[in-house]
């Protein structure tokens, strides 16, 4: 009994390692029976009476009086009452004329190589008018936690061609690095530029793929990405999962999971390097809150349930690398900060889970700087292990640290100048001001199609650091100063 293995595998189940554990326990006896015992319905939840032995988490199919199908999931199960969450909601549901089937399996996604180039809805069904994916390999979209002892630490530098990222917050293969943004900021353009330009140094693009998931996004946003993929000619390497702003809210809870199931398949079964772009995590979290309120869960902060952290972690932690496997999942979630507030629970909890964040700022955007990366609160936690001598260039770690320090000090001076006037500043303070301006315009700012190599980025950094006196640059070594600083070189 302890092992409980075998015997109960769903007949159509994959038997793949990827779904082995969660697949356990399901059986198919009930699948074909329709029940008409809905006892009550309210706010997306239906209570079914007299259906004993229903598996927790089972997928449910409801047929309403008009013959329309809705889907749902068992969230509580007892012999006398089964609580079902209906993704399309319970509006206009006539209890007397609602037929319910318990499919006795979790949400699964059929997988094959043919998913590349396809567009699915938020629940993983085709929305490109092409036939459904047929495969015996159907995986539970919830996935299973990766064993930390099986992970391989991400160490390979990805060049995005964007200086603010490569130079100061660099991305590594297998990292989860979100973009924190706000309404009206160019996060989509930045994400698209990363997808277009990302490549590994010294490696021809091998098997790569893009998984794009949109939840709560506008049609315009979805189209923007579609066109951007088309222009760069990678459409046949892209899998899309779209749940747009006017589509069922609860379905959003499935969308990132379906997308990541596809990503895991591409990465760890087909050895692809997968870049996952997800937008917008705020819409996801809001959907989660909506459901939590319906369920009556105790709220923690701002009405979001206490388990928002764990729930987000289940999604974000699916990025990474695995020992002895070739592929990888690099994740770039896009998230709009409500009222530009980084302490709001959604960016806050995200920052506690992801391996850094790229923060876009309104101030820079208003000054016409693209990409408006606010570097100080931005961070890449995996940068330290993927840059430097054997990865990018030996001076990279120190240059990055020096840019942060010098820019942070220059911003203090700018604040001071605003109060006492620039005329009152000392000579060295004035140099700092000039540095800040040049840094923002030339280093952070760049063209949307400008693809800078890491060497160009670092050389540019030295051009700017050379505006400051060498003795003020103590984060770089004396040897580096001698080699790269214009005053001493």
């Amino acid at each position, binding site marked *: *009994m*302890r*092992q*409980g293995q075998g015997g109960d595998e769903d007949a159509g189940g994959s038997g793949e*390692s*990827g779904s*082995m*554990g969660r697949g*356990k*326990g*399901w059986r198919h006896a009930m699948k074909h029976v329709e029940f008409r015992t809905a006892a009550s319905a309210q706010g997306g939840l239906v209570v079914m009476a007299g259906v004993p*032995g*229903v*598996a*927790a*988490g089972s997928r449910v199919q409801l047929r309403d009086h008009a013959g329309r199908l809705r889907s749902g999931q068992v969230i*509580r*199960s*007892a*012999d006398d009452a089964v609580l079902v969450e209906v993704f399309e909601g319970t509006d206009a549901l006539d209890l007397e004329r609602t037929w319910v089937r318990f499919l006795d399996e*979790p949400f699964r996604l059929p997988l094959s190589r043919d998913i590349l180039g396809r567009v699915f809805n938020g629940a993983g069904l085709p929305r490109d008018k092409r036939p459904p994916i047929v495969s015996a390999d159907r995986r539970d979209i*919830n996935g*299973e*936690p*990766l*064993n*930390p*002892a*099986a*992970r*391989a*630490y991400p160490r390979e530098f990805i060049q995005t061609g964007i200086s603010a990222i490569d130079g100061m917050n660099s991305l590594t293969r297998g990292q989860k690095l979100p973009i924190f943004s706000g309404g009206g900021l160019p996060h989509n353009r930045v994400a698209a530029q990363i997808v277009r330009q990302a490549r590994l140094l010294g490696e021809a693009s091998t098997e790569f793929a893009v998984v794009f998931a949109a939840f709560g996004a506008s049609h315009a946003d979805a189209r923007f990405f579609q066109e951007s993929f088309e222009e760069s000619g990678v459409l046949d390497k892209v899998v899309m999962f779209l749940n747009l702003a006017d589509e069922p809210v609860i379905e959003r809870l499935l969308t990132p999971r379906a997308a990541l199931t596809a990503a895991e398949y591409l990465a*760890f079964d087909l050895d692809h390097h997968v870049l996952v772009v997800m937008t917008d995590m705020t819409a996801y979290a809001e959907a989660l809150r909506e459901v939590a309120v319906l369920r009556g*869960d*105790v*709220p*923690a*902060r701002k009405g979001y349930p206490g388990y928002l*952290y764990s729930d987000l972690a289940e999604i974000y*932690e*699916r990025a*990474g690398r695995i020992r002895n496997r070739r592929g990888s999942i690099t994740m770039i979630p896009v998230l709009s900060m409500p009222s530009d507030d980084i*302490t709001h*629970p959604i960016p*806050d*909890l995200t920052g*506690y889970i992801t391996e850094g964040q790229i923060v876009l700022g309104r101030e820079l955007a208003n000054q016409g700087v693209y990409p408006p990366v606010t570097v*100080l*609160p931005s*961070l890449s*936690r995996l940068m*330290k292990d993927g840059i430097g001598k054997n990865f990018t260039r030996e001076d990279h770690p120190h240059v990055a640290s020096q840019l942060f*320090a010098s820019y*942070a000090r220059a911003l203090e001076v700018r*604040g001071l100048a605003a109060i006492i006037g620039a005329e*009152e*500043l000392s000579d060295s303070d004035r140099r700092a001001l000039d540095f800040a301006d040049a840094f923002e315009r030339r280093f952070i700012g760049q063209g949307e199609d400008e693809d800078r190599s890491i060497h160009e980025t670092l050389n540019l950094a030295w051009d700017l650091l050379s505006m400051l006196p060498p*003795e*003020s640059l*103590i984060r770089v070594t004396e040897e580096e100063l001698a080699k790269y600083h214009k005053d001493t070189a």
Partner: protein
Amino acid sequence: MGRILEINGPLVKLELPQTLIGEQVRVGRMGLVGEVIGRDGGTALAQLYEDTAGLRPGEAAEGLGWPLSVELGPGLLGAIFDGVQRPLHAVRTLSGDRIARGVAVPSLVRETRWHFVPAAQAGRTLAGGDVLGSVQETASITHRILVPPLLHGELLELAPEGDYTVDETIGRVKLADGRIEKLALFHRWPVRTPRPFRQRDHAVAPLITGQRILDTFYPLLKGGKAAIPGPFGAGKTMLQQQIARWCNAEIVVYVGCGERGNELTDVLEFMPELTDPHTGRPLMERTLLVANTSNMPVVAREASVYVGITLAEYFRDQGYDVVMVADSTSRWAEALREVSGRLGQMPVEEGYPAYLGSRLAAFYERAGRVETLAGDHGSVTLIGAVSPPGGDFSEPVTSHTKEIIQTFWALSKELADARHYPAVDWLESFSGDVKSAAKWWAQAVDPEWEHARAAALDLLAASEELQRIVNLVGVEALSSEQRWTLESASLLKEGLLQQAATDEIDSFASPQKQFALLAALLEIHRQGLKLVQLGAPARRVIQLPLLAQARRWKSQHGSDDLEALKAKIAAIPEAFEPLLEDYAAGAGRG
């Protein structure tokens, strides 16, 4: 045998009479394990350590008769366990890269034979905690085999020196009531019960972490409790990893509680490659990991910190100094909040139950330096990261923790943003152990330590005041002396407080190096002060090349290269001499 009545998320209602609160249960055909958290007549409410999807009402359930316990014996060191002490390497062998449900593996490897050397004598009366013998588990750690704490009786026989597996019988004890108890190399202990000891001892020696802002400014004693609060990205994890890597404890228990998988992987990858600076052995030999990463089931998260502290106490009971780092205690508190929410308990602040404070206090109380049951001395030092939502230190977990601990290493977002690491805020942090630490420093390093530390802190506080003035009216409003104070403080921040974990030389500083640097920078301050008091403009003193040079000393001379550093320090007055001649003469003439 009972059965499942209802499944609701991780909670299952069971028809299972006669179970106790806290008892382990096994339910369903998958054999999922959990613990009873509530009773009502013949039904029990249990929370399961694994995902409940696929469970159905009617499936079998059984009580196991014991509370959540850990296996304590040889084989712990170097291992990585999940939140309920399943060995993750073995789990991987069984279920692949992903953790499948219902995998049952014993915590300690059953096959390994350990070389046991007996120490106790048959015929003698034994009490709990007595040493039966030992196993040389790694080159640096002798694993003492202890009599289980609550046992008392006559040792009838003890196995001779030889190789035994952990569950072979190595001895028999006759209890007072005549029953005979078998002994093995390992025993079990319930994680929520503190392991007993004879009495608490005074903590006497500071834990040396090699991190200057910690050791020199906000010391923590062996057996003490510390908290590291800070917003995301401020450096909590790095600081804890630095401590795990460099501290002078004999055993380190690293608990990853609700944090990133890659951080554990990082530790798993770097620890075996680094050597313990104190024994020269691979660091992994003194380390054990407990991991419930954020994507692993939440219920086991609550258990993971108890598993960790019990493992720590077990090594303490062998007479070792143990450090446990918990990253992050906030995730544990949140897991507690979820359980209480499911039980329908009244939330008091931000959803947390009223007993949050007392739970935290009881947990931290398990730290301490003690006289063990066997009469040895051992300690558990507890260092918990705290992850306040929005970086707000007034939230419940941070504020309760702050009242419990003695040492508070507050991390600041502003410092982290400017990449000043470790981002320990020198004004917000505190340590209640400075007096005790001073005794050690005075003896082991330098009698001047306490004065020097205070002088440096005064300088930092003064500069904070002055900075406020500058921000209002500009630096021109300051006197030369005040401007020199600002410069000296900045020298302290950059040349002493800031310490890059990623810099090979700077990563660790011995107490001697810490004091040498501190004394040197203070000497520079005094020399400059003398000059400006003689009338030299601060601007001229600030331009001395020495000031830029001194900022680099920390990463130019390792702890084993103090002579070169001391030579530079001895030359400090020389650097000031030319200026001094100018102004001393000027003052004389005037």
